């Protein structure tokens, strides 16, 4: 298991956002977390990557207990995270946005940073926009840029919080291809509302409801799970 949580719980002023979440993610898997709005999905990944301090419970990453680690230390340990609400460096060129992600772990090796940056820009087909300010990009391109910043970190666990939100259909298709093309070694944890994306890319699905794990299973199992349909698909969300 690359990532495990045990009894992970978050309460905000007495209101539980997550209760006793036990979660296991094997190396190399692409996992989707789904669930209705307010199910505690973002809070859960927030606790995994350290943005949100857990009320109690433990997080284990690659065999090490990282519960008390600060967010930036967890990223350094091999995670990458993209925000639900697009978060780039708007006043900096696209190339520098990606380079900042690469430079953190490649250090002052300029050549390595440049080649990693070029590789990512090429892969995302945004080389022609490399010198534009990130803030001037279209919304869809900003989302892609943020995923690129994740790729530039060569993460072993890549956490994406609703990456396709607000993307056009063609862009969603590109995103699906991108995730599928990723190195088999990279473990992907993805929060997603778009069931087409989930069914297309996820190998395994965890369903959260009211802050608790409702079901785990393959896409086919989840599709036929009555409790899930009740809680989630039944709401007409898909």
């Amino acid at each position, binding site marked *: 298991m690359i990532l495990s949580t045990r009894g992970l719980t978050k309460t905000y002023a007495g209101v539980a956002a997550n209760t006793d979440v036990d979660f296991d993610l094997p190396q190399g898997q692409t996992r989707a977390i789904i669930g209705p709005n307010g199910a505690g999905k973002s809070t859960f990944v927030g606790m995994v990557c350290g943005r949100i301090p857990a009320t109690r419970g433990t997080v284990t990453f690659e065999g090490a207990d990282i519960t008390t680690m*600060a967010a*930036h230390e967890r990223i350094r340990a091999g995670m990458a995270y993209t*925000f639900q609400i697009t978060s*780039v460096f*708007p*006043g900096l060129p696209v190339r*520098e946005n990606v380079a*900042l992600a690469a430079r953190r772990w490649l250090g002052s090796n300029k050549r390595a940073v440049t080649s990693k940056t070029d590789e990512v820009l090429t892969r995302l087909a945004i080389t022609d926009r490399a010198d534009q300010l990130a803030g001037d990009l279209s919304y869809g391109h900003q989302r892609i840029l943020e995923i690129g910043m994740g790729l530039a970190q060569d993460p072993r666990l890549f956490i994406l919080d609703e990456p396709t939100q607000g993307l056009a259909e063609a862009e969603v298709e590109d995103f699906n291809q991108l995730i599928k093309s990723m190195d088999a070694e990279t473990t992907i944890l993805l929060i997603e509302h778009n069931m087409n994306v989930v069914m297309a890319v996820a190998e395994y699905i965890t369903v959260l409801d009211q802050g608790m794990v409702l079901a785990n299973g393959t896409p086919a199992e989840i599709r036929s799970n009555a409790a899930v349909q009740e809680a989630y698909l039944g709401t007409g969300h898909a």
Partner: protein
Amino acid sequence: MTDTAKSNALHFGLLAALAIGFFILPTYHSGNLARIMILAIYAMGYNVLFGYTGLLSLGHALFFSAGMYGLGLTMHLGGWSPAPAFLAALIASSIVATVIGFLVLRTTGVAYMIVTLMFAQAGYLTILYFGTYTRGDEGFALKQATRQLIGLDLTDPIVRYYTALILFATALLLLAYIIRSPFGRTLIAIRENEERARMLGYNVTAIKLKAVILSGIISGASGAAYALLFGYAGATFATVQYSILPLLWVLVGGAGTTTGAFIGVLFMTYLIDYASGQTNAYLIVVGVVLVAVTLFLPHGIMGTLRNKYAGWLP
């Protein structure tokens, strides 16, 4: 020319112009320029934090005066010679910056501004409290005989001018180097989007602390150089006004530009100089310019030039 070559040309061009300036300008103006160069170092130190890291401090007079008194007191009371006294000033300002940085970085935004203001005010009052040694507002003069460095008389206008220029050049080139370095790029990233920088794995708090210390040392170096070259240290330099001036200079010249600090000090010095010939309420220009810049020129002189004409400006 690449952008780097252009910015090198700008920096060395400015330094060359200042180097010949002494022989071209009338004595009054070359004297002014020496002072402007020293204060521009202060503005550059402030700019590291405000312009590049995005932290608006209202208490930098604390660092400036830590340097000023670090040198002034060791020379005046300790009888030290200028070189070790200057080192003492750098150490003093780095210690003050480390302690203050550690505390103030727990706050953000408006609270950060007010906390820096308060610590600087406490520093000013402390200087007054130890008036026996610091001579308070009245201050003390450094004896001409002690202001000698490797056989050169620092009170001689030409020596003073070129010492100021060397210090200014050091600070300018250091700043230009830093902002191109990975560390400098990270500072800019924090200014642009702190949370994103953190979630790229950067230890934002530690980097900001380094920025405060760097900014504090450069500001302290300016204070020490001021005391050494102009032979005076006084509590006036620790007042709120001397915390607001670097903000004003950098805003006018252009926050986050390497040359903006110098341009801002140059512009404001001559504006205040002119105004003080007209009225005893000459500080009104400080107010008018602050309001005008906020309303009409939010990127300052160099920042506006960069946005409109020359994107390469460092």
